[in-house]
């Protein structure tokens, strides 16, 4: 099993748990991604990108079923991530799969906006 150099986040009100599953990296985000977690979330996503390139992951899967809300600053971390994947050579790129919760209505519009940025990279799964 390859170690993953991504620091998990476990705070009151928000957590991010990374793990490797086959040739994919899986992230489970729960709670509220508000202004208190912008810095650790941004840092964790940068680490995920570095690791995805290092292990030649074909996909990073984000489980957002328990993510109640994400503010615009945390949303920006995803925007930056997508642009980082776009900047890779085509054969080094990987998919970002966002697994959404249809009961959390904000996710539909926010995740579609992320997908619209780069439809070849971002997949939204309901």
């Amino acid at each position: 099993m390859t170690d993953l150099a991504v620091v998990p986040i476990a705070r009151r009100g928000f957590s991010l748990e990374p793990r490797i599953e086959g040739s994919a990296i899986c992230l489970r985000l729960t709670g509220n991604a508000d202004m208190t977690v912008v810095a650790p979330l941004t840092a964790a996503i940068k680490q995920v990108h570095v690791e995805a390139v290092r292990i030649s992951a074909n996909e990073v899967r984000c489980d957002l079923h328990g993510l109640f809300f994400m503010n615009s600053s945390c949303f920006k971390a995803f925007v930056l991530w997508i642009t980082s994947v776009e900047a890779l050579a085509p054969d080094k790129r990987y998919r970002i799969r966002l697994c959404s919760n249809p009961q959390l209505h904000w996710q539909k519009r926010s995740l579609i906006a992320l997908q619209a940025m780069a439809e070849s990279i971002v997949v939204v799964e309901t």
Partner: protein
Amino acid sequence: MPDMDDAILCLDFRPHTELVTSARQFVSDFYARVLSDPDLASQLALATHELLENVIKYSTDGRGRFKIELVRTGETRVVRIVAANKTSPERARELRRRLDELSSAPDPLVYYQELMRKTAMRTDPSAGLGLARIRAEGDMDVSFCATDDVVSITAELSLPRSEISP
């Protein structure tokens, strides 16, 4: 269910992050009962959160005034959210510039996508996406008013009468 015309909730307080989450959850729960479409309640919750976080970030005295009201305008109902706070002249000018840009954009979704691209180039920690997000994802009209050292941002969502729960 009582008639919800002119229902007004007003908070004059010193918001912090946990209160922002509580206010968002309250707005979401309350309007999920008043409106027949939970997606609309979620749009209002998003605007509530973004506007209150702006108060925390930019209020020069830490205080903010938050008002959410459901009012009748002719045959339609409007949910109006107003967040006001004292701020610096520089911030007021920056807000005006952003709102002018946002209101003059012919397509809010296209503008939002362009802004997402631009924000990826910025090195400062501020996302600068909140108001455009309210406009594009929340499908709300956003306007701005400044008097002396107080700025207020208004986000409005027009509802057809059918959207009010019986």
